[in-house]
């Protein structure tokens, strides 16, 4: 397994450097104090969260393409013939993606603490939102990866876009006909309201979210084990 993960590092070296550069840039930007306010204002919170979202999203974009490099029939035959090869192949990809996300979480958390120390803000809410962002990444990977493994990157991405279109349509319908009072006000005011929900000790639904994301990620890995060999029918080469 270590060898397969090392292979991922070497294969995606250039993309990893690019992602690392983006993450380090925004992590460094986090540390530069935006204002001298003593408590996080909505604008500061928006800035911190926006920057960390960009870092997490850029890592997520990289993680989506991790299966594409091994979509070769010869490689699939080779790995399937080795003992436990399919499980190791899939598990190495999942672990690599998870490790990347968690490394970014760790870096951003340190940057939040340093930033909070510089301008005297309480950053515990930022850390909680960061964990929720990382959990969302795990859920996104958990949902889309079995599609990619089963149908190959091209068709898997197509099915993923269909799913996103369905969700976007549903969100649009809700936006047209649903209750939007909770979204009233500026983006900063919505975030402050969201921050209050997180601070509320009885909002335990959000506390379950990271656990659910990890469980879904694990289930997704096991689903992908079963789909891997069938996915080879869709490889071009």
């Amino acid at each position, binding site marked *: 397994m270590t060898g397969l993960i090392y292979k991922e590092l070497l294969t995606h070296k250039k993309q990893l450097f690019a992602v690392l550069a983006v993450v380090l840039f925004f992590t460094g930007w986090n540390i530069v104090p935006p204002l001298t306010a003593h408590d996080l204002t909505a604008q500061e919170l928006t800035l911190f969260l926006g920057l960390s979202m960009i870092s997490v999203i850029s890592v997520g974009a990289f993680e989506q393409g991790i299966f594409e490099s091994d979509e070769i029939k010869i490689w699939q035959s080779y790995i399937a013939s080795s003992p436990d090869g399919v499980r190791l192949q899939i*598990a190495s990809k999942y672990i690599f993606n998870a490790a990347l996300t968690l490394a970014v979480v760790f870096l951003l958390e340190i940057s939040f603490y340093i930033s909070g120390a510089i301008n005297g803000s309480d950053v515990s809410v930022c850390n909680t939102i960061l964990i929720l962002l990382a959990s969302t990444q795990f859920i996104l990977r958990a949902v889309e990866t079995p599609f990619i493994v089963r149908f190959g990157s091209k068709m898997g991405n197509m099915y993923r876009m269909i799913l996103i279109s369905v969700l976007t349509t549903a969100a649009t319908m809700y936006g047209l006909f649903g209750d939007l009072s909770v979204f009233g006000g500026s983006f900063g005011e919505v975030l402050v309201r969201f921050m209050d929900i997180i601070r509320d000790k009885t909002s335990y*639904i959000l506390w379950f979210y*990271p656990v659910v994301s990890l469980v879904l990620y694990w289930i997704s890995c096991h689903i992908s084990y079963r789909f891997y060999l069938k996915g080879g029918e869709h490889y071009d080469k």
Partner: protein
Amino acid sequence: MTNKTREIKRIVIFLLLCFIPPVVISIIYGINTGWSSENKWFAALSNSLVVFPALANIITRIITREGFENNSLDIRIRGKQRYYIAGLALPVLCTLIIVLLGYCFLISPETRQLIKDKTDITAVAARILYGSSMGLFLVFAGLGEELGWRGYLTPKLEKLMPLFPAVMITGLLWGIWYIPLVISGYAFGKEYSGYPWVGIVLIILMCVFTGIFLTALTKAAGSVLPAAASNIAGKSVCLSTASYILCIESFEETGAGGGFVFAGVVSVLSASAGIFILLKNRKKEKLSVSTKISV
């Protein structure tokens, strides 16, 4: 150079790299802030120092040209899930026992009534699960410590002495490493009688006994990952969740009693679980050796 001399040299280099930067940083912090845990830099300090043991591991391997084999980073989970689960479950068990003892002995009758009125079991379960999941989400923070102590120092000491003294010495050094933070109020605050010496003794005891459990996990799983997850889960779950359930802002409110309960429960449970895992592992190893010999 003999093997023993070489290992001693590596251990000395590791300890210098592990101790000097954090001690220097902590002393600078202490002089500038009066060893305050209220200072805005304290959180940044306590969360950043954890990377130094891992850095010391990496730099020592580079300096001594040891290479990166036997790095205790086996990421295969299959067949070892029970050690990850044990690592995440022990902090939960510690929390529940701390809450029970705190409820019985540490808080006022008014607070007990408040707990009865306000406790929401679902919210408590959610917080415990959230804290445990932090063991996995923040595993890199745990790796910062465990790669150094259990991943490098303990195996090196095992080459010079039996396992038990090696674990004790690692725990002792780990506890000493925490002294600057304890002086600043980490874990026990500053409002207890006997500050800071009682806190120092408690943290050393906790590190020694917790080290037994973390070493047991590392040896059984062949990897520091379960220990890293357990380390962070313990820090995320134990104190904060226990304080939440007991309706107190922090364990400092309970005075020195809270510190003793916390340290005692964690130490006893960790040591017991660690010794159990080590003995079971040793029995399994003896069985597999005798099976190989008979074949």
